[in-house]
């Protein structure tokens, strides 16, 4: 497989930095009481979403999870609209009606963050089925967590995708914890990827904090899917900096784990590699950092200044059409 092209690297870094900035800011805004509801942050897992989505176009699909901001940003969903959505504002991605857990942009191929763990597997099979029946070369990525790996829907979906040879890539983001329950406790397998054997598909374990490793594995899996050879399971081992949701005190993390995280930071790793190999200059990286900060600042400002949806929005968008409505 070809290594990620040098031209693509600034885009890749920018996406990762945007995710990190977005999430750090979302944590702050939640703590300040400005973002209501449940917020699940992706910081620490940036290399997975970006490493995979770097290989996709708008016409390819992804299904996401409750921890979906990173997937959105990697897939090109408008960041200002995302921030407005977190605030519940009218000009959010979903007109403020979805919130953090349901951000979606079907036109960008983003079929929704999802509040139900493991629910994306069947939906990804469906998007794959559309591509197969319409004979397009679209591929669908199903991002799911190590917690979702224990849901029946994921087992059913991997089996279905395999027997139907659907152009779907299952990307397990193993951040070590299903909410607060560690992987070794909830998963009977050594690695989630071991299960690929049972579904007769290739399975790989990669370092989910190494963008280049993720990208290489995804490149092979996506090419296989586009060739009509069926699904692949990639397990990306990573970690998350924040808790399951904001407000989680993270008492289950040991000090050793936290120290280890710093050493595995996906952005630091990326920077070290590209600078060592002189693929991007330090100045260029700093320029991207500054731009990312500005983008997030502007998004927050817009969200602050934007109006809430009109109250009649409560009643709209339930159906495309509905003839009679109960009082």
């Amino acid at each position, binding site marked *: 497989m070809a290594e990620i092209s040098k031209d693509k690297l600034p885009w890749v870094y920018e996406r990762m930095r945007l995710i990190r900035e977005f999430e750090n800011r979302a944590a702050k805004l939640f703590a300040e009481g400005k973002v209501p509801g449940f917020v699940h942050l992706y910081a620490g897992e940036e290399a997975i979403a970006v490493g995979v989505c770097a290989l996709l176009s708008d016409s390819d699909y992804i299904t996401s999870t409750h921890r979906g901001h990173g997937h959105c940003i990697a897939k090109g969903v408008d960041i200002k609209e995302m921030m407005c959505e977190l605030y519940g504002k009218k000009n959010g991605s979903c007109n403020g009606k979805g919130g953090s857990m349901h951000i979606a942009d079907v036109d960008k191929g983003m079929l929704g963050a999802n509040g139900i763990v493991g629910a994306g597997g069947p939906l990804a099979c469906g998007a794959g089925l559309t591509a197969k029946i319409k004979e397009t070369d679209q591929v669908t990525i199903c991002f799911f967590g190590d917690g979702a790996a224990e849901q029946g829907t994921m087992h059913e979906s991997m089996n279905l995708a395999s027997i139907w040879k659907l152009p779907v890539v299952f990307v397990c983001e193993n951040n070590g914890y299903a909410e607060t329950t560690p992987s070794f406790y909830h998963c009977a397998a050594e690695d989630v990827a071991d299960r690929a054997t049972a579904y007769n598909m290739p399975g790989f374990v990669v370092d989910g904090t190494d963008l280049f490793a993720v990208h290489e594995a995804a490149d092979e899996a996506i090419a296989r899917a586009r060739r009509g050879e069926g699904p692949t399971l990639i397990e990306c081992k990573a970690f998350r900096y924040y808790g399951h949701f904001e407000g989680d005190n993270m008492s289950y993390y040991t000090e050793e784990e936290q120290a280890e995280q710093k050493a595995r930071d996906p952005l630091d790793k990326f920077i070290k590699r590209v600078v060592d190999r002189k693929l991007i200059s330090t100045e260029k990286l700093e320029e991207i950092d500054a731009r990312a900060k500005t983008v997030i600042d502007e998004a927050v400002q817009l969200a602050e200044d934007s109006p809430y949806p009109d109250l009649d929005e409560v009643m709209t968008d*339930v159906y495309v059409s509905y*003839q009679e409505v109960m009082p």
Partner: protein
Amino acid sequence: MTTRTITYREAINEAIRLEMRRDPAVILMGEDVAGGAVTHLEKKGEEAWGGVLGVTKGLVQEFGRSRVRDTPISESAFIGAAVGAASTGLRPIAELMFVDFFGVCMDQIYNQGGKMRYMFGGKAKIPLVIRTLYGAGFRAAAQHSAVLYSVFTHMPGLKVVAPSTPYNAKGLLINAIRDDDLVIYLEHLVLLDSSGPVPENDYVIPFGKAEIVRPGRDVTVVAIGRMRSFAMQAAEELAKESIDVEVVDPQTLSPLDESTILESVKKTHRLVVVDEDNPRCSVANDIVTLAAQQAFAYLDSAPRTVTAPHTPVPFSPPLEDAYIPSPAKIVAAVKETVA
């Protein structure tokens, strides 16, 4: 147009066939919708079953196994895949073999298909029909006989259709397939072999439009699905005693044609609702509430409901027969309203 007598089963099959011919985006998927994907049958272009009770027989011959897809017994995966396919450009018809199996895939129906459009601020549509067998009287026991349309009617984002005759089975299904929302289409087990006149061509029956099956002056009887024919039998009995019953078949439960029901109640001043579902939080009670809230001043007596009891469906034939609402129970309920 030519009209001939065919069964409810054939009417459903014909609706699917016509729509699959008309629109290549329409596909059919479910457990054994063709059946027998084995070489000796494939060579002959045959299927083993064509659905557990033969409703989809013959479709795989015409449309092939790409568009008529047998699924594994993984209701969550294939109902969810149908939702995903609908949101990305196909118009799937997914068969949930028996409605009692809703419990194994409800998340995909309720949290995914039913809420996606709303959660996404109107930026998605789910043109999906979930066909499912329901109803008691088939000696199929507690896990293959429930009605459950009240459950789906309760849920925003779903449309619920309960055809009662071959004619409306075809027209409502064609409308469901062309509709851009998620439709739960309920096929009554006992009605599959019932027959009636059905035009050969395609036609649609709109949602939210009740049918006045029998006009009458004295009592409105709203009857759903198989209960329509029971209500008609009861009406014939009651006519002998000079009680003139108006039978209204809602045809769709979500949306519900409230105005036709209310107009009928305002005319007859009495209401009986016949519903094969369990009685608590039911469509029957919903319709009584509608009349109580919007036509109270017109009512001359308390509305009555004739429903199944608050129990699962029993297996033993005499017990099952006692469980199902009957024409005799409808007659008794109507008499209570005119007493």
